[in-house]
């Protein structure tokens, strides 16, 4: 059986679902990168913390809505603390310092989860019913796939409205283009960074809910692999623009989802290797990113 023959509508549906979740993660990472020029490696740990919140709420028999509320509460609180205790004091330092700081935060959160919940983690089952299939045409699609796509589209539309129609959004876009000049004309740096980090956290909460449905076993390294794949996707798409970063996240999620479904089990273990080789090859040809255009596509090399 060839790989192409194995790519069915079912595989495409899975790819769209994972692509939608990865696109949201890419937006979350891209928003913070835009205003701080910082790759937040601790993003996956925010998702992990939200997933544990869902698992704990489910374990205690809380209703679904309370679990989701707790998930968002935990993720937003951690985002707020991260911004106040790490990003804000360090933002005038070099990107290398901030990068190392996000590594430190990532490992700190992972270690706390390890101490608190143990290496085996917990199982979040409160939203498991979303794994039931619904029939669309001739294809059985899991409800979570539909929910993920609809939620991602709604979140992206809301974000577009925020960025395109509000003064806060305009300030965020200007800060992403030239933070120094934006501040000189009165754009409040703390407000813009705070908003970017909180919106990014909100998206991490959404992703935590979606991923927990797809992967109910929540361990301290939950979402770590996804974050690395999304980061590769963001670089692949083009980091300098939110749109290209989002497209990169979606593309790598879509390909992961499709191949994850289409590849035989004994070959799917090679999927990450295949993905990263593809990323390297694309970046060798288009160093500015797959979707970058014009001056963004040109990268100065030494």
């Amino acid at each position, binding site marked *: 059986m060839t790989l192409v023959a194995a790519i069915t509508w079912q595989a495409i549906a899975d790819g769209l679902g994972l692509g939608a979740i990865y696109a949201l993660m890419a937006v979350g990472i891209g928003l913070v990168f835009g205003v701080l020029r910082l790759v937040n490696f601790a993003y996956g740990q925010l998702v992990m913390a939200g997933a544990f919140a869902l698992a704990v709420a489910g374990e205690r028999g809380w209703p679904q809505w309370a679990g989701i509320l707790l998930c968002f509460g935990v993720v937003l609180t951690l985002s707020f603390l991260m911004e106040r205790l790490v990003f804000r004091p360090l933002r005038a330092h070099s990107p290398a310092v901030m990068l190392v700081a996000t590594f430190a935060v990532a490992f700190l959160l992972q270690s706390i989860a390890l101490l608190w919940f143990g290496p085996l983690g917990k199982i979040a089952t409160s939203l498991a019913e979303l794994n039931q299939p619904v029939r669309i045409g001739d294809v059985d699609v899991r409800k979570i796939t539909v929910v993920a796509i609809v939620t991602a589209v709604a979140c992206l539309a809301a974000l577009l409205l925020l960025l395109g129609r509000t*003064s806060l959004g305009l*300030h965020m876009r*200007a800060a992403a283009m030239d933070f*120094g000049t*934006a*501040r*000189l*004309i*009165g754009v*409040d740096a703390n407000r813009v960074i705070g908003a970017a980090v909180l919106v990014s956290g909100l998206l991490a909460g959404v992703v935590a809910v979606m991923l927990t449905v797809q992967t109910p076993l929540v361990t301290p390294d939950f979402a770590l692999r996804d974050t690395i794949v999304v980061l590769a996707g963001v670089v692949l798409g083009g980091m300098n623009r939110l749109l290209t970063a989002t497209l990169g996240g979606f593309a790598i999620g879509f390909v992961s989802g499709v191949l994850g479904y289409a590849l035989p089990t004994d070959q799917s273990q090679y999927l990450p290797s295949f993905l990263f080789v593809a990323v390297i090859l694309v970046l060798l040809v288009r160093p500015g990113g797959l979707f970058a255009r014009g001056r963004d596509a040109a990268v100065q090399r030494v």
Partner: protein
Amino acid sequence: MADHALELRELSVRYGAVDAVRGLSLVAERGEVVGLIGPNGAGKSSTLHAIMGVVRPAGGEILVNGTSVRGRRPEAVARSGVALVPEGRRIFADLTVDENLRLGLAGRGSRTLNGGGVRGDLAWVYELFPIVHEFRKRQAGVLSGGQQQQLAIARALVARPEVLLLDEPSLGLAPTLVDAVFGALGAIRERGVTSLLVEQRAQRTVAFADRTYLIANGELRLTLTPKDADDTTTMVAAYLS
């Protein structure tokens, strides 16, 4: 006695071991255009950067309407009524002309000087720079250098500043566009806005400004008035001193 619109007292700026500005004192009254000229590296831009809070002064005081803005963050200085037209324009090329103008409103902060009046200010800015109105839906990056300069000044003006700082606004412009920029500065003066104009066009600045400070090597060398505009010998001597 009323406070000066802008006053620098013994301002010093240092980059490591290098003194960029040494004990510079100057004043600008309400509605005045004050020139700041001098050779490259004299400390003109460093003075503006210190006022805007981009660099922290090593010493001295910066007062806007009698209130110290020294040590404030750039956005706080902007919101206290000081607007900068930066060197090289630094407009947001990927945003539309209209969006660039709207960004200028950020400089108003919570100030309610003479009421809101955004629409009225926009109308005035459009009247001053018709090209900004004509191209308001276009991407700012496609404008010519002169048009971008007009947009940069317009963006600063919609913040309704009390003090306008201009860093070499005529740099790289064709002579007719330089005339347009100085014409706009005249209209801004009539509006009662105080301007501190950093320029390389020394003679023209001295002739235009109410008072011009000539600095060299970070120090004040001369204070000139329009009647000194033709005294190029003295100016050249101060430049070379």
